[in-house]
């Protein structure tokens, strides 16, 4: 296969069409869809609306909810640890505030519980991989906040709730948008390098489904800039954290309230018992469960562990029927299939094109609508481009950005994208990017209120693990905002709880035993175990020869 500047010859033919139509498309506007038209393309092509990818939950609080098969798989699964193997009488960590999951929401929660008066010795941050192995660092495009004079939190509210199909929890949306400017202010005080215009004002871009330009960004490393600064503060303030130590089960007391967790060191394979007055779950979403067989933009540990543990303890879930597929995942080259091509490419003017080089749809629809339009093109027309490994995709016309905004725009604003494609010989200032939707975000999750209280005492939740903020579909830039807003609120709520006199009772895993009983009653054909902790990517040849040795023999 002859490659010419990163693309095979046959794909080059279609790129010629893209180049030919570019000047004509410069001012061409494809109208966005009406609510009725949106519904039609969603019903027809979005995986959420395809019954074959889903089934009903068969036990627990949300019995009867129709959610992706992969979600049911982890909920209808036995505990990874046998509760009888855990000795709860020996407490390894005794703290006031335990935060499980050290991504954006978890680190915000840790910082704000400290700011709000919890001494650092009373905080513990535990995480599956390293501090910062999370989806936050991979968020590229931006964070929404309505701070410009011609914008307002009210307009932000409307954008967010319309994007979520009016199914969001209004109180949570209110909290999200009203805290937005506060969060940006906090970040500025910490010294985050948000992009600025020459007059000192903050750069603000549009996003899919937003009616104002309110996307604040730091090149296309926005999440990374936010996270590495929060991490820097965690270390400066000497807040204790444990890496490579995911939680595998919550601990409850005789009243049913959450009283801590069992952590498991994935390197030494020992467990630790943590007693905590408040447990904040910030373990993120389910990208690595590969819902509907899609590749994902998510980090290695995004396996929905927190939802599983909370469900066993009796937490109520919501909106898990809604999965976000990002419209533009990389479809070529094979090495990076499914990785994120940020929405910022479209914010800055990039258009979505078929094989013929003509626009397919308004480039800044809400994500579910945009993704469905692309799936439609690739599955019900022949206007798609096929790669040598039979992936189908459509073009994202990145060179158009520099036609509109001038030379150098891509290197200055999309340096991560430029670098990633350039590693495979593709120059996105010269050639378009082949894209196809990719699994991106867990829209639903654990139900909580505006102060992050869940339906169980002692348990708070914040971030992608939670449901209600985004309804059935999240808009670009509202997740980086969410993790900060609700991470902060969770931290402050934990500090409030810290000052109360109440204590937790006797530690138990009764809820796990109860879950096992409920699962036994289902007579499951396949015996599965969860939480998943890490996905399995070893080759079949290796897995066929795996064998378990007795630990003592080594």
């Amino acid at each position: 296969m002859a490659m010419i500047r990163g693309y095979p010859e046959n794909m080059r033919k279609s790129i010629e069409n893209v180049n030919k139509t570019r000047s004509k498309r410069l001012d061409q506007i494809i109208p966005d869809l009406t609510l009725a038209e949106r519904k039609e393309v969603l019903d027809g092509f979005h995986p959420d609306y395809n019954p074959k990818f889903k089934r009903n939950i068969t036990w627990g609080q949300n019995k009867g909810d129709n959610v992706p098969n992969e979600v049911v798989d982890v909920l209808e699964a036995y505990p990874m640890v046998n509760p009888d193997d855990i000795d709860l009488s020996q407490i390894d960590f005794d703290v006031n505030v335990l935060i499980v999951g050290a991504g954006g929401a978890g680190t915000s929660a840790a910082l704000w519980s400290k700011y709000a008066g919890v001494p650092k010795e009373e905080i513990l941050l535990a995480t599956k991989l390293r501090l910062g192995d999370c989806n936050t660092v991979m968020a590229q495009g931006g964070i929404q906040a309505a701070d410009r004079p011609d914008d307002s939190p009210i307009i932000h509210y409307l954008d967010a709730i319309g994007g979520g199909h009016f199914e969001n929890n209004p109180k949570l949306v209110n909290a999200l948008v009203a805290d937005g400017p506060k969060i940006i202010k906090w970040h500025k005080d910490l010294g985050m390098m948000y992009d600025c215009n020459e007059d000192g004002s903050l750069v603000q871009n549009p996003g899919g489904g937003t009616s104002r330009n309110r996307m604040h960004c730091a090149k296309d490393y926005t999440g990374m800039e936010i996270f590495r600064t929060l991490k820097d503060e965690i270390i400066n303030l000497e807040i204790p954290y444990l890496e490579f130590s995911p939680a595998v089960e919550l601990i409850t007391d005789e009243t049913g309230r959450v009283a801590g967790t069992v952590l498991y060191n994935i390197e030494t394979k020992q467990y630790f018992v943590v007693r905590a007055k408040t447990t904040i779950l910030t373990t993120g979403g389910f990208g690595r469960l590969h819902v509907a067989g899609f590749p994902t933009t998510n980090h290695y540990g995004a396996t929905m562990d927190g939802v599983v543990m909370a469900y066993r303890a009796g937490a109520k879930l919501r909106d898990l029927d809604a999965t976000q597929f990002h419209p533009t995942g990389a479809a070529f080259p094979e090495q990076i299939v499914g990785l994120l091509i940020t929405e910022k490419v479209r914010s800055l003017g990039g258009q979505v094109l078929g094989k013929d080089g003509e626009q397919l749809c308004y480039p800044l629809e809400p994500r579910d609508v945009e993704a469905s339009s692309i799936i439609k093109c690739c599955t019900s027309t022949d206007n798609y481009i096929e790669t040598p490994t039979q992936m189908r995709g459509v073009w994202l016309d990145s060179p158009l950005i520099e036609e509109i905004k001038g030379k150098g725009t891509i290197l200055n604003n999309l340096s991560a994208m430029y670098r990633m494609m350039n590693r495979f010989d593709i120059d996105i200032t010269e050639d378009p990017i082949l894209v196809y939707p990719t699994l991106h975000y867990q829209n639903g999750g654990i139900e909580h209120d505006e102060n992050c209280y869940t339906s169980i005492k002692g348990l708070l939740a914040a971030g992608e693990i939670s449901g209600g903020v985004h309804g059935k579909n999240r808009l670009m830039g509202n997740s980086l905002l969410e993790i900060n807003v609700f991470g902060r609120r969770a931290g402050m709520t934990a500090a409030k709880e810290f000052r109360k006199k109440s204590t937790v009772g006797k530690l138990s895993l009764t809820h796990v035993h109860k879950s096992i009983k409920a699962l036994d009653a289902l007579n499951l054909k396949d015996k599965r175990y969860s939480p998943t902790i890490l996905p399995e990517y070893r080759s079949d040849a290796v897995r066929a020869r795996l064998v378990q040795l007795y630990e003592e023999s080594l």
Partner: protein
Amino acid sequence: MAKAKPKTKTENSTPMVKIFIMGAAHEVPASLTIMKAIEYAGFKITRGSGCRAGFCGACGTIYRKEGDYRIYAALACQTQVEDGMVLTQLPFVPAPKARYNVDELQPNASAMLKYYPEVARCLSCNACSKVCPQEIKVMDYVQYSLQGQIKKAADESFDCVQCGLCAIRCPAEIPQYHVGMLARRLHGKYNLKAPENLEHRVKEIEDGVYTEAFSELMKLSKADLKKRYTERDFIDQKKA
């Protein structure tokens, strides 16, 4: 020693390459990234895999190629395997981060030297820049830090994913990626100040300017809310 190999479908249909993972030879499909090749070979990675997309710096990898004395560096998730690669991952770098309070500092060389006096030991050998998988001019930003040119240090180091390979290669034992972090925070805090409209909006919200409008919105029926949504104006974007 002859070793029988189980044949798999993949091996028959795709071209394979031979790579050496920590010295041991493995045949893997030529199209894989280093990370996927390590997994294909049978390793379940715990350290050395994070975001899998080039942003987290967990998968710093060094390798040599046959017949070439040079040490190459890459992010395992962003680099395709090559025949004859001899590789290992370096997912952790012992490099202590200074504790500081940015509120008490100024964006100048003294702040940099106070917390990272070792930057003065830089020999300008440029080994750090050569090893950087992000192709950052690491040595240049270390020099800018030493010179108190905080803006230049912050801008040059901005794309750093903190994998730490630079710190491992440095003969002057400088933790470059922490130095860049401090420079960026000083620049972001003191040179790029928060604009007035931001402070103004924060105050408006704290003063309850929007409280009433919010409670009205929340009282709307779904039909009325949909109407408000579809009728909202777009002022920044071209929209048909």
